[in-house]
């Protein structure tokens, strides 16, 4: 078990002055998983990643990479990490080959194995033909690929990608998704994004962070289950007393939509459909429509992050 635990983040906080960019975040990542990191702009995604990669020291809390504490044994811990920051750290005056060789040397790959490591990284990122081109002359998509190649050249156990698909065209995005899948077989991958479908298609674990706090931490299966049926859409021909619906077991809230339909939100696993139908018949509300709605990740995301905001406003 402990061999599989590659990243341990233990109640980590980071303050910039009075601002808590990351506030008491804890999570773990196992081998073979792809963790998707979601959050609105400025939520603390990048800060968290910078802390895991040792670019930023946490104000409090501990981070362990593959069993090595990032503060006590930074060198051993960092050797297990490949990191692609938001802006790929490229030397524009180098060719792709020269740059990758330099990265290989930085990560202490022995001289004899560097050529092989470089070839493999290039193959995986679709850069085989670009080896002799100057990085400064490459397009944004290609630069992004070089950035990823740089992150995986030393076969790190943990690969951390900050918005890997930003600025790429749809074909490249798909290629990168395949790459991430491929990587996850031998490594643990953490990727941040604010593109939601990307998470659904390439991650098997999702975390949503908002205002520095972790508001959701679930596997993608659990999430789909959660999303599958937590909303009912109803239409009645007569007027309705919503407070009576809200009293039903499991119902969290109701909402009247603009087109005259009602939405009923309920807690997962406590489907109130039967009770609701009975209630409607008993009271002669004239039930015309009852549709179990499948919430998208987007709804979930909005709900979670909005929820927090109203709470924050309430405390002010």
């Amino acid at each position, binding site marked *: 078990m402990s061999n599989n635990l590659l990243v341990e983040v233990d109640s980590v906080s980071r*303050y910039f002055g009075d601002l808590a960019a990351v506030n008491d975040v804890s999570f773990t990542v196992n081998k073979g998983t792809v963790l998707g990191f979601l959050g609105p702009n400025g939520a603390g995604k990048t800060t968290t990643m910078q802390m895991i990669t*040792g670019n930023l*020291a946490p104000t409090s809390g501990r981070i362990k990479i593959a069993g090595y504490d990032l503060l006590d044994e930074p060198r051993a811990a*960092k050797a297990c990490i490949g990191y692609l*920051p938001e802006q790929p*750290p490229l*030397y524009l005056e180098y060719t792709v080959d020269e740059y990758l060789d330099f990265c290989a*040397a930085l*990560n202490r790959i022995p001289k004899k194995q560097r050529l092989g490591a470089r070839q493999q990284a290039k193959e995986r990122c679709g850069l085989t033909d670009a080896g002799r081109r100057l990085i400064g002359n490459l397009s944004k998509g290609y630069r992004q690929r070089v950035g990823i190649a*740089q992150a995986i050249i030393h076969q790190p156990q943990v690969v951390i990608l900050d918005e890997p698909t930003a600025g790429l065209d749809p074909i490249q995005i798909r290629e990168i998704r395949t790459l991430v899948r491929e990587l996850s077989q031998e490594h643990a991958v953490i990727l941040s994004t604010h593109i939601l479908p990307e998470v659904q298609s390439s991650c098997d674990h999702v975390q949503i962070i908002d205002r520095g706090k972790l508001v959701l931490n679930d596997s993608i299966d659990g999430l789909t289950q959660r999303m599958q049926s937590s909303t009912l859409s109803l239409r009645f021909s007569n007027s309705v007393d919503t407070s009576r619906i809200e009293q039903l077991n499991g119902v969290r809230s109701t909402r009247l939509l603009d087109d005259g339909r009602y939405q009923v939100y309920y807690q997962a696993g406590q489907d109130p459909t039967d009770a609701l139908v009975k209630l409607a018949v008993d009271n002669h509300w004239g039930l015309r429509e009852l549709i179990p709605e499948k919430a998208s990740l987007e709804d979930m995301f909005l709900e979670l992050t909005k929820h927090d905001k109203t709470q924050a406003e309430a405390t002010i």
Partner: protein
Amino acid sequence: MIFTLAWREIRSMFLSPLAWVILGVVQALMGWLFLNHVDNYMSIQSRLLSMQTPIGLTDIVVASVFGNAAIILLLVVPLITMRLVSEERRNRTLTLLYSAPLSMTEIILGKYLGILFFLLVVLFLVALMPLSLLAGGSLDFGAFASGFLGLALLLASFAAVGLFMSTLTQNPTIAAVSTFGMLLLSWVLDTGGQGASGNVLAYFSLLNHYEPFLKGVFDSADAVFYILLITTFLVLSTRRLDADRLGG
């Protein structure tokens, strides 16, 4: 690992025109000054011979050339050191070094070594000029070596100051201007102040410790002064990089 970083610095420098331009300009200026000194020596040669303790070629030409080189390089070194850290910070490539299994000390030493190598090339090119006099005369090699060593130590100190200034900012121009200010201040320190406090200030003048070397006097106190100065600024630079990680 340090050498990998140093090698990258050197390569980057020579991949951009900056290094070549600097080498060319310094060489042209020094060539002109060198010829002037040789000319000067020729014109006063007959009078020198009649003196009781004749001062020779080394005292006049070599000392003057090394003396001039110090001033010219004081103006040039900030231009070489300015981009060391600041440019990497601006281009966000510093992340690559921070995420790699490297200590801050290794990063600083690597960069410093790269610059030292470049300055050594400059130094050799400058030293070739007085050495060319061997074709028609002889030199006092003791005095020559002392001047060479002095200039090397002086340049190494300039580079350490420049490296530190570069770690403070993400704008190369600011790094260059502040390095230039620091170096110039250290040059003129001995002209200000009278009495005891003036002496203390003068002691910290970088060029004051260089004078004895030019006269052929190797005083270990002067050498140690430079070495301490270099160490101080390298340690400060390391601390400054660390602060990047810690600070907000």
